[in-house]
């Protein structure tokens, strides 16, 4: 059956490509139009001798009709189609969705990878995402531009870059870089085990949502992270030339085919070229032959050579999509070399998706990500798998323990992970009417001591859906003196639960996110859909804090030893006295002592002093003692004291002039004063101010 359907779809496309209507074909074959219609709609299949006739009409052979692995007849020319200006004279100088984000590569990595995660096909396998930075120069650049039909685009770029609007200026800069540096940076994002861009050319579907429409989220299930349809705009925002090429392997056949659905989309502002005004976007593809869409470029099923020329070739037939951002740049501006950009992408993937990349003993990871960098086809940085443990060891450890069921109720060892339930009362939808019941969702809080290297800690990382980190909250009222910890809150589907309460919580939290998906707060959508939403969010936060306090918080000090605060505050023993510290600086101090035991068993010491300023001369008494573990330290006698820098020695005293800041003297201990052999003890040197009375 399927085979017959495939044939119908294929035949329909060949007729359209060749501009032949079903009626015309029927006439040529001397059959009824109904017969042809039955083939095209998959209800019947032509007999073998008719196949040969059809092959002749389509200018191909019978084998092609049977294998249907390519289109019949000559390739139609692949061209750029530019949308004509609006008839009402309206002009758009850019795509608003593009401005919703900071156009840096970290944001792109976050948004695009989240979209890939949302489109994961086989839930038993991770979706594989690979970022490739590819710098082209010289012949490589030249051949790429010619595959892109750059000569067709150039006049449009030239016109658009003259615009004084924001987009025009950015384009001018991108063109200047291409012209002056003769180099072009391509950023390719491939995903595998994802849905691919399925669906018809113009109607509803994943393909149209990405290629044809703005702000169409087209999320296929209620587990998705995104919801605004903004994420894809980051691809175009990352291109200085507003140009993205796409090659998709589909998970569901369209027109009977799945492999190498290719299209390009260019976002330019309004422009006039050769006296004709154009609205903005342009598409690279095959001209449509349908009468109402004459000339519009649509996606085509490319052959392997074309995708290779366009740098769009994919590793395997595993479904998914490759996006090629032409003229990629990092608007953050700090990353310039390929190595820097490679590292920045790795960091962004690790920071945003460590949770999705974490696997348990029996639970596969949701995501596998890697980054590589090339210059003219040669590796600059080879493909590196992003390891979530690298930057977030404690967080990954916590999540892994949860996936493996190794969590504990209370922390008693620093390697442990505590899990606590956090109750979340999801209010009913307003639409459900009066008397509708809410849901009791049980979110999970994981807590573990922070790892030594963790730069950020003592926050609650909140996630939902495909373990997408939404926000990092600083917990309130935790009390002082808590050791650094890492905490992860899993809400909604991130808990791994699939009950109706979980669905309700997921929907509520998604509605609570602004377009950036970076916090849970009151949004218009939330208050419109739910009663009492802000209060429920506040309660949720309080429940998180309480659960955290139960794990890391310290018990309150017993009532019996605190006493009245009014008295307690006057009796803080360890609090440093306000005025005393400064006075300590007013005296000479031993800065450094170097010494060794000489052949006679005496200590030879070299002592450096730091001396503060005062008006009078310092008279100091150097003292040397053996250091012991406990009890009184035995004093030693000096056999010899000698001045070395900035001091004099008179009668065993050091004399230091007022304007001296640093002084040095040497000393040798008297062996007969040693209670034990010199080599068996450590010595310390101290100085006292010589007292007038001690003479």
């Amino acid at each position, binding site marked *: 059956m399927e085979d017959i359907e495939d044939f119908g779809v294929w035949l329909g496309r060949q007729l359209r490509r060749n501009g032949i209507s079903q009626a015309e074909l029927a006439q040529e074959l001397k059959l009824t139009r109904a017969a042809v219609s039955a083939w095209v709609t998959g209800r019947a299949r032509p007999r073998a001798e008719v196949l040969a006739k059809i092959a002749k009409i389509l200018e191909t052979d019978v084998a092609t009709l049977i294998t249907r692995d390519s289109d019949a007849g000559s390739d139609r020319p692949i061209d750029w189609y530019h949308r004509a200006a609006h008839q009402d004279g309206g002009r758009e100088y850019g795509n608003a969705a593009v401005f919703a984000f900071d156009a840096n590569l970290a944001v792109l990595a976050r948004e695009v990878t989240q979209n890939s995660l949302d489109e994961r096909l086989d839930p038993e396998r991770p979706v594989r995402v690979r970022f490739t930075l590819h710098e082209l120069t010289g012949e490589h650049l030249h051949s790429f531009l010619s595959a892109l039909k750059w000569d067709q685009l150039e006049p449009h770029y030239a016109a658009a870059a003259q615009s004084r609007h924001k987009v025009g200026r950015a384009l001018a800069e991108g063109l200047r870089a291409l012209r002056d540096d003769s180099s072009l940076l391509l950023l390719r994002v491939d995903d595998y085990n994802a849905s691919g861009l399925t669906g018809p050319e113009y109607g509803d579907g994943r393909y149209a949502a990405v290629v044809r429409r703005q702000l169409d989220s087209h999320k296929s299930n209620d587990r998705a992270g995104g919801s605004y349809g903004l994420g894809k705009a980051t691809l175009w925002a990352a291109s200085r030339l507003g140009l993205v090429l796409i090659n998709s392997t589909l998970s569901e056949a369209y027109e009977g085919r799945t492999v190498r659905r290719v299209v390009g989309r260019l976002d330019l502002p309004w422009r006039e070229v050769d006296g004709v005004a154009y609205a903005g976007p342009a598409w690279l593809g095959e001209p449509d032959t349908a009468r109402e869409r004459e000339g519009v470029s649509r996606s085509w099923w490319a052959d392997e050579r074309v995708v290779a020329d366009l740098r769009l070739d994919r590793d395997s037939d595993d479904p998914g999509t490759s996006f090629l951002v032409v003229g990629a740049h990092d608007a953050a501006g700090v990353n310039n070399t390929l190595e820097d950009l490679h590292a920045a992408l790795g960091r962004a993937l690790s920071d945003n998706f460590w949770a999705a990349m974490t696997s348990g003993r029996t639970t596969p990871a949701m995501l596998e990500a890697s980054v590589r960098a090339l210059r003219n086809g040669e590796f600059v940085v080879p493909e590196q798998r992003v390891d979530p443990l690298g930057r977030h060891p404690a967080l990954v450890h916590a999540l892994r323990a949860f996936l493996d069921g190794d969590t504990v109720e*209370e*922390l*008693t*060892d*620093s*390697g*442990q992970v505590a899990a606590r339930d956090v109750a979340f009362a999801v209010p009913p939808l307003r639409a459900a009417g009066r008397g509708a019941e809410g849901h009791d969702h049980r979110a999970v809080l994981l807590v573990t001591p922070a790892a030594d290297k963790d730069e950020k800690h003592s926050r609650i990382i909140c996630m939902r859906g495909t373990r997408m980190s939404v926000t990092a909250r600083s917990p309130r009222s935790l009390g002082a*003196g808590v*050791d*650094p910890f890492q905490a992860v809150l899993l809400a909604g589907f991130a808990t791994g639960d699939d009950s109706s309460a979980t669905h309700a919580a997921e929907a509520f939290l998604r509605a609570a996110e602004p377009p950036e998906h970076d916090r849970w707060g009151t949004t218009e959508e939330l208050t419109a859909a739910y009663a009492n939403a802000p209060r429920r969010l506040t309660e949720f936060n309080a429940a998180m804090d309480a659960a955290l306090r139960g*794990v*890391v918080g*310290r*018990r309150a*000090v*017993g009532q*019996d*030893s605190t*006493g*009245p*605060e*009014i*008295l*307690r505050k*006057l*009796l*803080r*023993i*360890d609090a*440093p*006295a306000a*005025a*005393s510290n400064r*006075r*300590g600086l*007013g*005296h000479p101090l*031993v800065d450094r*002592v*170097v010494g060794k*035991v000489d052949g006679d068993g005496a*200590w030879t010491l070299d002592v450096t002093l730091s001396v503060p300023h005062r008006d009078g001369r310092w008279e100091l008494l150097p*003292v040397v*003692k053996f*250091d012991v573990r*406990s009890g*009184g*330290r*035995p*004093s030693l006698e000096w056999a010899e004291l000698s001045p070395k820098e900035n001091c004099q020695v008179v009668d065993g005293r050091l004399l230091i002039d007022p304007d001296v800041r640093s002084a040095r003297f040497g000393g040798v201990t008297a062996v007969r004063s040693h209670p034990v052999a*010199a*080599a*068996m*003890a*450590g*010595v*310390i*040197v*101290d100085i*006292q101010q010589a007292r007038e009375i001690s003479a």
Partner: protein
Amino acid sequence: MSTVYAYPTLAGKIEITVRGASMDGKPLQLSLISQRDQVVALHQIERDDWIEGVLDLEVSLPSDELDEGPWSGVSCVAVLTEGATNTRVVSRLERRRGDTHWRGEVRVRRSMHAARALLDVSVVGSHGGVDGRVIGRTDTSWVVDLLARTPTRQRDLEILEKDFRDGPEEGLRRFADAPWLIDTTGDLPAVLINTSFEGLPELLSGARGPLEKATAGMVAAQIAGEAWATMFHAALSDLEFDEDGTPRFPGGWRESVLRSILPEVFPGLPLPEALAEAHSCRGDGRGWAEIQARIHYAAGKRGQVPKNLTATIRAVQRAQEGPRR
């Protein structure tokens, strides 16, 4: 003041992490261990009759320095000491092949300690034919607190409310008329507030209205001033000395009290010399009477007596002027 040895010692840092603890086999909550303050509160409210606690240690040493250094037969030990009971327990730590850290257990016997034990790690090795050289030691000791319920380094004195007249403690009966007492005989100094002194506990913890609050502040300042003076004397009378008679700072609360009061008593003298001076005056009586006034002044200042007295006088004045207006 650092010690110089006759052999090379480690310059790198030695760090101890207490990864976990248990009491009589029952694991302790991690919140009773503070890695930041380096304190373990080996105490559980539910039980006071435990016998042995076990700390699970992980120690990192400057391994490159050790590998390249001139020492041989290097080993690493944890040393648990408590001055009050003169206890010193050494536990050997071990390093497994391929592990970067040294690990081991430290046993804390309840019967061998009074209140606070210090935990250090020493690295021992041979150099120049002499075995057992200590070639490195932790900079900051861990504190194992057997009395505290929270792992904090800072220790405040205890303020206890007791019934002097009818309470269980016989020793307090003879002070039945006293509003409060300062007790420095225990491990920590304590202020005992007499609950049978009518109205005193209520005044201190629940004063209402400006006049009552000012009075409570005045009483608190009075108690604090006395406490500081008593603690200073107690600390000064409990010193240890080097062989040449130089007094050493005693550690614990005594050291904190001395360090905070001495600069007020002997302004202009470095702390060690101020301590020596105070001790010698106390011993031979020379100038001791004159110094009493200075101690009293310093203790009163620490207890904020002048500030509170001023506040009280103003409050009383205002109360008296009030009705006349």
